[in-house]
């Protein structure tokens, strides 16, 4: 078998098709909302630094949090990690993020000690 798909029936049930269209419409809405959110988060982060009104140490934590939130939008809405059938991708990314965090932390914290 070259193709494991189940679409040989000549007609798709009308009801199912309407449901699928509605789902896609809903999806498009989510994409648009997350785009607006990401733009806003970027602008907020930009002005948090640009305005120079927030203390540096707080600003760093603040913009890093914004970046993490934005990345969640990307991964879960635009890259569909929230959809069904993404268990192993989530495992893969979570493991990658864990190793990544350990790596960044060690290269930041453990090279300039005397």
């Amino acid at each position, binding site marked *: *078998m070259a193709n494991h798909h189940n679409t040989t029936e000549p007609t798709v049930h009308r009801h199912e098709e309407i449901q699928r269209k509605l789902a896609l419409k809903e999806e498009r809405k989510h994409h648009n909302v997350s785009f607006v959110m990401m733009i806003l988060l970027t602008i907020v982060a930009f002005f948090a630094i640009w305005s120079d009104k927030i203390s540096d140490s707080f600003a760093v934590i603040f913009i890093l949090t914004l970046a993490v939130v934005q990345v969640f939008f990307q991964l879960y809405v635009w890259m569909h990690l929230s959809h069904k059938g993404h268990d192993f991708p989530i495992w893969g990314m979570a493991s990658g993020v864990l*190793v990544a965090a*350990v*790596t960044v932390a*060690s290269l930041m914290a*453990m090279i300039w000690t005397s």
Partner: protein
Amino acid sequence: MATHESHKKRSGLMDWLTTVDHKKIGILYLLAGGFFFLIGGLEAILMRIQLMEPDSKIFTGELYNQLLTMHGTTMIFLAAMPIIFGFMNAILPLQIGARDVAFPYVNAVGFWLFFFGGLLLNLSWFLGGAPEAGWTAYAPLSTVAEDTGVDFYVLGLQIAGAGTLAGGINFLVTVINMRAPGMTFMRMPLFTWASFVTSGLILFAFPALTVGFFLLMFERVFDANFFNPDMGGNVLIWEHIFWIFGHPEVYILILPAFGIISEVVSTFSSKRLFGYSAMVFATVLIGFLGFMVWVHHMFTVGLGPVANSIFAVATMAIAIPTGVKIFNWIFTMWGGQIRFTTAMLFAVGFIPTFVMGGVTGVMLSVPAADYQYHDSYFVVAHFHYVIVGGLILGLFSGLYYWYPRMFNRVLNETLGKINFWLFFIGFHLTFFPQHWLGLMGMPRRVYTYMSGQQLDGSNFVSTIGAILMGLGTIVLLINIVISASAKHAATKDPWDGRTLEWAMPVPTPEYNFAQTPLVRGLDPLYVEKTAGNGEMTPAEPVGEIHMPNGSILPFFLSLGMFVAGFGFIYANWIVAIVGLGGVLVTMFLRSVIDDHGYHIHKKEVEADIKGGRA
């Protein structure tokens, strides 16, 4: 169903250059890895000859440094890993009832990248000298070395490493997506589990090494300043990156050996593996902890008591899941009907040897004590006990065990046992005295020692042991030659196996299973044997089988990388661009040439089944 007539049968050399069949790629990995194993072994014996007597002047200074660098690098990257990949390729798809790996084309790319990377690195011997900065290539030793040795090291391993990463992803997807019906995760054989976890470690450890090699290459070729303190750089960056990769690498190596031992011990004790789920859990836990302990290679750097203590505790914790495994192997043998075949001898020899390596590992994990052991022969003894006494004994065991499945011949048992005893005794003679040498203060990586320091005797014994190990390996080669010229083929199930790889006739059909088997429990073949069937129940009717086409592109893609490697080594940008251009062209060709594979007709499959060939 449309069939594609583009398939043409290739034969001879062209068949091997273009193959995407996991069984053939497995053999290629085994042969190439075996070849590099002989080279690495030869380098080891040359070093032992130099150290046989005090004040010896056979291989001194630079040449000795080249030997020790190339011995370590070759053994880890070009011998151990490819041989592991050979078994994973040849056996893993069979064990889960799959027709192939998930990405047959990428599989071929992975092999050829490794092959050309290894070739590039070893050509350094003839082109201005091999690298001499140790297999760890610590900066600034590696960044200030004037000759091109380290450039060969960086480029060769970068190319080989890319192939390894591709292989890791391939096996992860194969295990997740391509298991036969009924083959749940908790029914997978331990070798498949270990390979799965190892592939995960490869996926997350090798990218760090990739970046490390890029940084080192930029530093050497493009005058970057990551590791140059005069320009604000920091040498510890290399050391961290190397060990963030390097420690998981140790578990990448040993976990498949654990898997092999589990299969062999269970089969030759004629018993189900004791504590299967604990074994799975221990494997996963070792994989996870493997990422959290790399600083124990850097205790003497001076990261402070807090960092050292945290990593010491994490390191000691690994002894727990490893201990679980040791006990489970012993309990599997307990009360079993043990058959001491060569494979089983290697497995039984493995257990106490690996325990000894583990015990010295726990000793080394104590930072205060490590300040004494550091960079002495004690460390050399420790990691050879876990890598040779663990991994290599495991690989020998796997070779004798799976040889009939891979090559359709059984290796001679008498020669096998001679091989075992020579290698096993030789191993302990070589490395056991090195514990004392280390405790008496003999530093590693130094090409000589003076007489009258009580180092002479142990060094002499150590060299004798190394020669015995070499003899053992020669016996293996003789055994292989004899088996190849033997007339009768192996039977399909010579060991009364328990897992799916013994369910097919020999030679294994190119599509593995004529009908995908239905798995009805752990040790699926054993389940069917006890149910009185003797063979697997099919999960599907006989039908057309889809197969991927062979391709020469992986060979040329890797050749392009090889050429580009030379370009970077000699800073010849025309050669580099030609090589990389070749890589891009093959990638482009791959994406524009439609290749949907071909189908084996139902009639052919039926004929194979009738003729006992499937």
